[in-house]
């Protein structure tokens, strides 16, 4: 079975000489398909750097990184764009929807860059919005939606390309508690449906939903705890939906 994520001994150094900052000091991480991983750590622990590398937004200074069997290190700019488009779905803390574009158009955007035909695009975007419970808000612009709704649009946008990996960076960091529960519930259901999810967070509440929790400190993995089996259900699924 191909690993969705295979990071081997990745290091990342910003700057050089005496002022060099070692954000990652040899991180190895393997994620199997269907897993739901929470990456935890205080700020400065290197979790954002790891997220950028996993998301193909940055390259490690040393070490190897395979995403869904593809060696990302050897890709050029254009191929990286394709990998980001097809293999990764991003969910950001600050939603990052494009203003002045309807929810539907926002969700269609990755498909447009992926070269999907308009009719097919619309069908898949509507399905993704339906999945996150926003079928009745498709024509609203981001500024007409609540934070929780915006984050759900962002999740729909991340899912619409059926990526190998759903990568979320503090997805609940800007949300109130009820919206947080909504979003985590969606993640639980997606995980139950077999999606591979990596969530970067510093909140233990969020991490409790994952099947596996990884703790980073000073650029190294210091803890790797499994809460539920890879092919099982996420531990808190019942509670949230109940």
């Amino acid at each position, binding site marked *: 079975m191909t690993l969705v994520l295979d990071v081997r001994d990745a290091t990342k150094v910003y700057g050089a000489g005496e002022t060099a900052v070692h954000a990652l000091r040899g991180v190895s991480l393997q994620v199997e398909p269907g897993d739901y991983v929470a990456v935890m750590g205080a700020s400065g622990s290197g979790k954002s750097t790891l997220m950028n590398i996993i*998301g193909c937004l940055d390259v490690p200074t040393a070490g190897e990184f395979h995403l869904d069997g593809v060696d990302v290190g050897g890709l050029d700019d254009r191929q990286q764009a394709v990998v980001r488009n097809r293999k990764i779905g991003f969910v950001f803390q600050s939603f990052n929807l494009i203003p*002045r574009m309807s929810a539907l158009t926002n969700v269609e955007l990755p498909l447009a860059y992926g070269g999907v035909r308009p009719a097919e695009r619309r069908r898949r975007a509507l399905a993704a919005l339906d999945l996150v419970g926003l079928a009745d808000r498709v024509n609203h612009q981001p500024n007409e939606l609540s934070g929780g709704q915006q984050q759900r649009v962002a999740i729909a946008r991340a899912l619409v390309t059926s990526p190998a990996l759903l990568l979320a960076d503090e997805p609940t960091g800007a949300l109130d508690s009820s919206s947080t529960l909504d979003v985590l519930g969606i993640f639980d259901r997606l995980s139950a449906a077999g999606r591979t999810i990596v969530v970067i967070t510093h909140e233990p509440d969020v991490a409790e939903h994952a099947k596996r929790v990884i703790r980073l400190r000073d650029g190294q993995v210091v803890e790797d705890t499994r809460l539920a089996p890879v092919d099982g259900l996420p531990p808190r699924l019942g509670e949230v939906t109940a």
Partner: protein
Amino acid sequence: MSAVEIVRFAVRGLAANKMRSALTTLGILIGVAAVILLVAVGEGSSQSIQKNIAQLGANTLTVSSSTSGGFSRGQEATGPRTQARPLTVDDARALADRAAAPSVASVSPVVSANAQTASYEGASHAIQQVVGTYPSYFEASNKPVAKGAYFFNDDVLAARKVVVIGQTVAENLFGPVDPVGRQVTITGVPFTVVGVLKEAGSSSGFQDADDVAIAPLPSVQQSLTGFGPLSQILVKAESADAVDAAQAEITSVLDQRHGVGGAVAADYQILNQATLQETVSAATSTFTVLLAAVAAISLLVGGIGITNIMLVTVTERTREIGIRKAIGAPRGAILGQFLVEATLLSLIGGLLGVAIAVAGAQFTIAGITPVVVPGSVVLALGVSVAIGLFFGSYPANRAAKLRPIEALRFE
């Protein structure tokens, strides 16, 4: 990612900031309209001047007396020369000699009197120019009659008081009445109108080519100018090819008769239609180029406006660019979007500019009817699109080169 998609994104981007887009477009609009309109004005003035020159008659040479001739210039550099001989009817006769001047087709001695008051019944009108000449003048100076007839050699010999009048004169004096056969009084002397000239149409600046009256030479001399020197001699050459030969023959005949040669400079000058035309067209094309250059600068300024606004747009939308890149937009799509935005701005500005210039060219500007040159429209449009591509490429490149993490971090 199809081209249509990129254009749609670009249009959406422009529509997001309508005021800014409109003002940027305005810069290009003004530039393009200025180029087309100013070139049209230049072309219009050039054409009207050429037409006026052509009206003087084809293949003609105008001989007039000159005050700068006479003895050597060193001796009499200032003041009119005293020894200059005026042009006379005898000079004209000599030029008509087939043996001495075989290239000359016809010779018309001309006297003219300016601002002569003519009246008919109650109406009165100051005729700008009353010309006394021979019948050959009509053909040489390209003045056909619309009504009635010319006067004839007989009329000249008998010094009959007959006159052919221009349209302006006919309208001012007679109104709707047919002037042919009626009598007008020019400065107290009665003349019978035998014909009306065809409308010349254009007026060269302040001179109305239709405000003339043409009568036999001796009649005008008797009643208006006196038997002094001729104002000019109009010579028509056998053909266009013979114009230069005719000029040489005239020069030799007149040099001999006026004792010109050696230290004595010519006391007459010959105006050659073709030379005049060349000189004038060279001058007007310089004028047109100058106008176009001034207008081109405004087009350039408009282009810089596009760069400026696109740079602002790219900076303002850095985060959006980061998002697009994070969800898999290839560099080409981002580059394309911003390049198309810039090009659309300039293309829309260009098209509107053409529309405004064409509309503006329907009006008379500073007494000149502008003539839109199709080449200038194509050029201005092409340049405006090129400006969009050129001036948009720097900001678009900057957008495409943004690194997604940095762009996403941008606030």
